[in-house]
């Protein structure tokens, strides 16, 4: 038996390793070092002591970042390895299918490009969602939150349509390696989007119960963090699955 080509394994894991590193470095630069106590100025320290004596304020953490935010950063870094493994499997089995349909037989580039655009647009709406709740504008928050939700839902709709179309063309989960790896990778991403959509809907409903306030904007921020991550992963998936099929140079 021919030995497994190791290059794609290493490439895929390196890509994700680099991605994780960039994310962590970005996080570290932005948040971690500026709030290490050693770097804190005297004024900041005094301000901290005031906070300690004020029981209504958040309990101070070492870095000054809320635990929940840090949790999601680490979780998403871990999630990178999930997608890293799936992309590895996809890349290794690229072009290894013994029977059709092959990628170019079923892909509809225009359709997927539109759905990609809609998903990326939702990231923009997510930014507006967060910024409006940080300003305490509940009305705008609901509007943008619902818009983000709709975009996510539309993306899912496109994906369901695409899957049905592919199945109609004869590409099922067990048809060939392309089918298995494709459905598993995009399906996992789809599950992530679905969770995000439910999350956004939950926040939207919760805002009518009075659960979303300016003081709790951190919870919206975390939802945003997750949502942007799901979008970024889609950019990688879109490039790896769809764009790599395009003949280079026309």
């Amino acid at each position: 038996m021919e030995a497994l080509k190791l290059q794609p394994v290493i490439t895929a894991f390196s890509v994700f390793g680099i991605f994780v590193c960039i994310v962590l470095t970005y996080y570290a630069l932005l948040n971690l070092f500026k709030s290490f106590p050693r770097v804190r100025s005297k004024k900041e320290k005094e301000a901290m002591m005031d906070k300690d004596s004020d029981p209504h304020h958040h309990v101070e953490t070492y870095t000054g970042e809320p635990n929940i935010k840090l949790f999601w950063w680490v979780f998403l870094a871990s999630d990178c390895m999930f997608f890293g493994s799936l992309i590895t499997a996809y890349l290794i089995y690229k072009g290894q299918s013994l029977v059709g349909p092959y990628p170019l037989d079923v892909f509809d580039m225009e359709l997927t490009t539109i759905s990609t655009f809609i998903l990326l647009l939702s990231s923009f709406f997510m930014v507006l969602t967060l910024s409006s709740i940080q300003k305490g504008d509940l009305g705008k928050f609901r509007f943008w939150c619902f818009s983000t939700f709709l975009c996510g839902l539309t993306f899912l709709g496109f994906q369901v349509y695409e899957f049905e179309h592919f199945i109609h063309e004869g590409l099922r989960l067990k048809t060939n390696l392309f089918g298995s790896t494709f459905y598993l990778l995009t399906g996992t991403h789809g599950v992530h989007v679905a969770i995000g959509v439910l999350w956004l809907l939950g926040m939207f409903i919760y805002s009518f119960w009075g659960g979303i306030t300016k003081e709790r904007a951190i919870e919206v921020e975390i939802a945003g963090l997750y949502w942007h991550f799901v979008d970024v992963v889609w950019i990688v998936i879109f490039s790896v699955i769809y764009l790599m099929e395009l003949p280079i140079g026309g």
Partner: protein
Amino acid sequence: MSGHGPKLALPKFLSFLKNRPTKENGLVSWLTTVDHKRIGILYLYTSFFFLFVGGIEALFVRTQLSANDLEIFVGSTYNQLVTMHATTMIFLAIMPLAAAFFNFMIPLQIGARDVAFPRLNAFSYFMYLAGGIVLNASWFMGGASDVGWFAYAPLTSATYSPTHGVDFWILGLILTGISSTVAAINFIVTIINMRAPGMTLMKMPVFSWMAFVTAFLLAFALPVITIALIILFMDRNYGTTFFQTAAGGDPILWQHLFWVFGHPEVYIIVLPAFGIVSEIIPVFSKKPLFGYKLVVLSGAAIGFMGFTVWSHHMFTVGMGPIVNSAFSITTAAIAIPTGVKIFNWILTLWNGKIKFSVPMMYATALVFLFMVGGFSGLMHGAAASDFQQHDTYFVVAHFHYTILGGGLFGFLAGTVYWLPKFFGKMMDEERGRKIFWWIFVSFNLTFFPMHFLGTSGMPRRIYTYSSDMEWTALNGFITLASFVLGIALLVFFIDVIKAVKSKNKASADPWDARTLEWSIPSPPPVYNFADLPKVEKVDEFWESKISKKPIKTLPRDPHGIHMPGKSWMPLITSVGLMIASFGAIYESDLRYIGLGIFLLAYYGWALEGDAEYYLPYPKKGRK
């Protein structure tokens, strides 16, 4: 600790969620606990139990091998025993034993009241228990997995493993994987965010540091095995062909995915033990740890390099000379930071006022035993020589020296060392010494002869051999020694329980130790630190004892000591996922019921009231 934001707004039909359980004693209090100390104790007892189960399986294996041509446990039964022995020991005994110490000790060592997410911590424990139940339920439901703990494809396919054993194995490991991932993220956040003021990363106790590195290894390695397991499950049950050569799939992909997880796993097991040893040796040498920074950085280096050596498990697969050489080099390189640690421990002992109490005996034994395992590791780290040793008892000897000699001995050391903190009771010193020598000698008598068996060609996982091979005498000897080891370990755990039940009360600082956990009473009160400490030096507690100045503390909160509330939800979510796993194995509607329970409990978790409460400060304050 979550914030004191405005009270959650809940519609009326959900208002029952505002009440959280408050029982302080009895079974309910243990099922709803979020106290990291209680969860640590739960981990400790559960992993002892699974250590016992895995030990029995090992002794069954040894019984079958005790003489040539025996037919006690034959064929599939033997394979199940071998597979479940390894799986139980690694995933259900050794890793959770490390988790027990992580849970109990990290918040105490870094001067915190609890972990960052107390409810998630309870969830981790119950998921681990659920995984253990699913894995072991297979014994009673048509047979356990019999494909070896690394479950190479295509042996795992539905064609060659038609029973549900492998499915139980997959789901059980996914559940424990979720448990470990969540726990790892929890510890990372705890260590980054909950340290006492002034405790920079480079002033943190070494055990917490190694836990930090281990948590990153878990967070990055477990997703890979989870994906591999999901793919395998789909191959077996949904007709995909990831590992089926006939359809263009490649079984070697499984090996890559498995070992990308599997090798960091080795360091996941051994780094916490290294951390424990790095705590114990300075305490019993009455010296600060030699080269604290180097020990910490070499630990982190081991963590990084642990991800670069996975293919050394696959030298004989046929990856070609270039790949084999590359992984030989990285494998040899990882010996460097390990060696740095060993030299630092030895230099800590150098010129110290050494006192050989029982924890110190286990710790120094670890240094020696891990070196034996490390050297044989270097031998098959060289690809050319590995072709001779691959899949022989030489490898069995090697990884028992690293996992038991490096891992278990560290955790036994930790058990004796921290038992006063866990339960407020001391173990009997004289008896402890005797038990140590029985364990140490029988361990070496069991596993050292396996090197000889391996070099004379005895392969792993065979259930019997003929007398012509001349392996009978050594095997008989090993079996005898292994029973002594089993009994000695059993006596150790009985001794632990005896000590817990005894009236042999421990003082707050029985070993004259260095780190913050010894600055509070044994066992610690539910809030750990009445006054949260401020840290200025590496061994803050030691420095305060030397200079006879109390540790500086933060001002008290006028409301009292802030405590997290108990909850039923971690237990219910885990039960839901466990039911869903059984449903997935049998493709029954049970999976929807399980997922339904999970989802309901999940929303209950999100919406249940802020049950943080305040305890009054003790009158006298901390000494």
